[in-house]
């Protein structure tokens, strides 16, 4: 065996074994760190604006003419957390199906984005909304009223989807 011993007493020289000069060096490093710039974001006042690729709260796209969703139920089907519930209904319009009830349980949602991926109408997409607070279980189940967002606010995500999806 031609193996060198590599223990503490052989690795270190006399001054290093004394600890104190090394501690002084370390303290020099920490002292210098104190004057370096800070990167803390003062969160509630100073908010972060996510990019288009950000997967926040899933929402329904609402065009000027009405909602895009045709209540096919694919999102509900693909949702791994079983967070989405859709009930379809019919109208007299050309686009004859629409969801009479569309609920996303935000306590279950895992923000995977499968619903967005599977949606044939690009009707359910992920928004930039990242701070959701609910005071009760009932409040966390979002109905159509809170899910539908005008298309004008969602351009970033829609552009991103057109380019990469």
């Amino acid at each position, binding site marked *: 065996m031609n193996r060198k011993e590599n223990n503490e007493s052989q690795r270190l020289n006399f001054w290093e074994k004394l600890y104190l000069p090394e501690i002084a060096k*370390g303290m020099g490093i*920490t002292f210098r760190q104190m004057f370096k*710039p800070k990167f803390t974001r003062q969160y509630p006042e100073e908010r972060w604006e996510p990019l288009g690729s950000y997967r926040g709260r899933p929402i329904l796209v609402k065009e000027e003419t009405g909602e895009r969703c045709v209540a096919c139920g694919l999102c509900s089907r693909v949702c791994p957390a079983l967070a989405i519930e859709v009930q379809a209904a019919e109208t007299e319009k050309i686009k004859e199906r629409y969801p009479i009830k569309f609920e996303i349980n935000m306590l279950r949602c895992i923000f995977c984005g499968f619903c967005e991926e599977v949606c044939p109408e690009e009707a359910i997409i992920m928004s930039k909304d990242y701070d959701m607070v609910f005071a009760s279980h009932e409040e966390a189940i979002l109905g159509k009223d809170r899910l539908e967002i005008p298309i004008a606010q969602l351009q970033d995500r829609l552009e991103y989807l057109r380019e990469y999806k």
Partner: protein
Amino acid sequence: MEEIGWILLEALIKAIVIFTMILLAAATLVYIERKFSAFIQNRIGPNRAGPKGLLQPFADVLKLFMKEDIVPDAANKNLHRLAPIISLGVTVAVYAVIPLGNSFELAGRTIYMGIAPNVNIGILFILALTSVGVYGITLAGWSSNNKYSLLGGLRSSAQMISYELSMGLAILGVIMVSGSLNLNDIVVHQSGWMWNILLQPLGFIIFLVSAFAETNRTPFDLPEAEPELVGGYNTEYTGMKFGMFFLAEYGNMATSSALIATLYLGGWQLPVNPEWIGLQEGSVWLALAQLATIIIKILLLSCFFIWVRWTVPRFRYDQLMNLGWKVLLPLALLNVIATGVVMFLI
């Protein structure tokens, strides 16, 4: 009879002032520690409670007051209650003998800065009290009936006893140089920049390291090593009882700083000759200036404690014991012998 009344009144006033000062110092140190650590880690630190987060320690204490006070079912209830009181009480009691300035004349009476700075066994008093301080932590660990707490308590007692020896021997060098156990005499002996750190550099380093071990600060904070012992001796403590340990830790830091300042860094001695700046020997203003001097020294040393904490990682238990018994103790003995030989020759 009247004389005793005056003495008691004086002692009472001083005790109240000093007690308040210690609690304020602990609060200030909590704030300084949080800011200091934040700056070292490129953060900003507390800045919500009050301007620049200055009220943060009070918010912390208020929170601790509102918490439920839990005593574990299987704990030894009386000792569980007693332990934090011992810890905090000892911390405060040490200040009784620390001189915060020279004596001055007021209304025909000589008033000493400090509750009893002229006790002629001051250093023995401090050593005795810090030994009692071990009981606070050990009893806390034992009475909680929790294996982690017990381990923390055992470690702290082993650690404090090991380091008390080298600490005592380091102090012995100072006593030999100044020829007195009276802390005020030791400070007076250091007048004119003849600080003991110059006469006893080795003793100073030994005392400093031992002080870190005595106060359970990093790199020797094994009794509360979070990764291995959950919270150490204070795992089972909540509310203000935990708060008392918390305050005791910071109080201990201030105490150790005061001791280091008194024994090695000239205590309340002003950095310049007081007569140059027009302060007369024995006047009230000189005493206040000296008080300010020692407070500044205590604060700077406490900052040093905090700075070390955020720089040096924790020692392993066997390294700690090796350092205490195989390095510091022989060095302290050597220091005593060398001091003796030099004093014999001169």
